[in-house]
């Protein structure tokens, strides 16, 4: 038999073996070639059996995926910056620079940096801060900045108290602590709570407080809610009860609403509450949003059991009250990438940019 014919026969018999027909049965169909075919088919079987035992390590696959998607995200970045967005960013930076210069070199600017709620230049100070937050895209850095600004808000409230400036609207955030006997506080600021609020339910929570300063140095609370954080970034690690997103570790509870299926490398947005100095608990997880959702959605999530709904939204939607700016959007359902790959007829494309030849 010519080798070419034997090649065809081998392929035919090998296919039958792969389909589950016993080797002996296959060979019986070609007794005149059984001697030549048997070792070939046995070798082929051995090769396939061993290949079937190769299973990729899941962690390595996840690492590769994350690396792959991070590189893609990096490559996408310049393409996304259109001329208009580039100009917009330039304009924002220019305004920022002017504000910073104004703040640093003018007497009024200096006053602005040290201004307190109610001062004429306080809105300038807040505008600079909001711009800083808006320009910080790294999730971990952004959280760090928000934490700094939260601290600043509570210091401002304490400064108002020291100066005896009462009847001033304030908004700040911090851990809720205290007791019925000793009084309740948020970020160390004494609070006068409305009767309908049940403070025991808030103990240990990181809360957003809106209220008005009083002569005794406390703040008369008008609304109080859980402070919500939005973390947007690439999923770096997925464990059963903890994910790492953009360098931030977030705890996942059974009640966490996970809107979709996500793995390492996916770009997501999640809404979380703070459960400790460096601990966050995810409330809702969804695909990364093209733009922030409505604050109204949030306030429903963020409201605490005060006995009545908060008409103001109370998560800082008011400019003066807004501690976290745009950081309170909730992941939604929309998925910017629903369309699937299109099918096409295969062709003979081969890698053309590799650096070696056989």
């Amino acid at each position, binding site marked *: 038999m010519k080798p070419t014919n034997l090649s065809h026969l081998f392929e035919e018999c090998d296919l039958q073996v792969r389909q589950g027909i016993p080797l002996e049965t296959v060979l019986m169909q070609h007794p005149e070639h059984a001697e030549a075919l048997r070792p070939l088919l046995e070798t082929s079987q051995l090769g396939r059996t061993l290949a079937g035992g190769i299973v990729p390590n899941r962690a390595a*696959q996840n690492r590769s*995926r994350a690396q792959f998607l991070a590189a*893609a995200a990096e490559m996408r970045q310049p393409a996304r910056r259109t001329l208009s967005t580039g100009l917009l960013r330039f304009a924002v930076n220019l305004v920022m620079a002017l504000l910073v210069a104004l703040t640093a070199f003018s007497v009024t600017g200096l006053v602005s940096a040290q201004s307190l709620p109610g001062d004429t230049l306080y809105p300038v100070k807040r505008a600079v801060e909001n711009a800083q937050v808006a320009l910080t895209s790294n999730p971990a850095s952004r959280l760090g900045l928000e934490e700094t600004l939260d601290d600043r808000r509570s210091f401002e409230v304490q400064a108002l108290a020291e100066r005896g400036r009462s009847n001033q609207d304030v908004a700040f955030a911090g851990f809720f602590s205290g007791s019925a006997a000793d009084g309740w506080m948020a970020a160390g600021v004494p609070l006068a709570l409305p009767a309908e609020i049940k403070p025991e339910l808030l103990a240990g929570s990181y809360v957003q407080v809106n209220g008005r300063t009083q002569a005794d140095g406390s703040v008369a609370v008008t609304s109080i809610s859980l402070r919500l954080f939005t973390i947007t970034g690439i999923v770096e690690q997925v464990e059963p009860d903890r994910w790492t997103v953009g360098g931030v570790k977030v705890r996942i509870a059974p009640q966490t609403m996970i809107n979709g299926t996500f793995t390492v490398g996916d770009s997501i947005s999640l809404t979380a509450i703070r459960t400790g100095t460096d601990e966050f608990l995810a409330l809702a997880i969804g695909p990364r949003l093209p733009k922030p959702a409505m604050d109204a959605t949030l306030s429903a999530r963020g409201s605490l059991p005060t006995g009545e709904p908060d008409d103001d939204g109370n998560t800082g939607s008011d400019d003066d009250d807004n501690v976290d700016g745009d950081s309170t959007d909730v992941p939604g359902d929309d998925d910017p990438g629903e369309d699937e*790959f299109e099918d096409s007829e295969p062709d003979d494309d081969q*890698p053309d940019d*590799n650096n070696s*030849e056989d």
Partner: protein
Amino acid sequence: MSTQTTPNSLTALDPRKLGDLHDEYYPQVYRYLRYRLEDERLCEDLAAEVFLRLLEHLHRNKGEITNVRGWLLGTARHLVQDTLRGKYRRPTTPLEEHEHLSNGATTELDLENSQDHQRVRAAMQKLTADQQHVLALRFTQELSLEEAARIMQRSVNAIKVLQHRAVDALRRHLEPA
């Protein structure tokens, strides 16, 4: 996801599509690499490198890729060749070092499989590059002759002959000296 993907849906570097692509093809690329190379960690690195090269190719947008699997396996093949060239003179590690099993259990059957694997891999490395490539494609990917022919840019008949010779050569190298 289809095994054939048009370039337009990839060149936008949409993360969801790229994630799907990675999920689908990583095991195939890894199996190909692992069948041809012994070092597990190296295979993991090379598999990741294959996908990064795909990304670079898509980013540059030079030319179309309508057979993504073919492109990935072709790139994996080049990386294997590069690796083998660089490692030809590297001393092989003793068999005993490879008798560990992924699930932590050591059974006689596992050990036998591990030894068989070493023998097959050692025999494979004595084949020509094309012979190794065709066997890795047929054994690890369950590709049809037509798919293998497309990836290797040869006729189906040529692949049949190449495969036959490869298996025969492998058999000879597996025989006790």
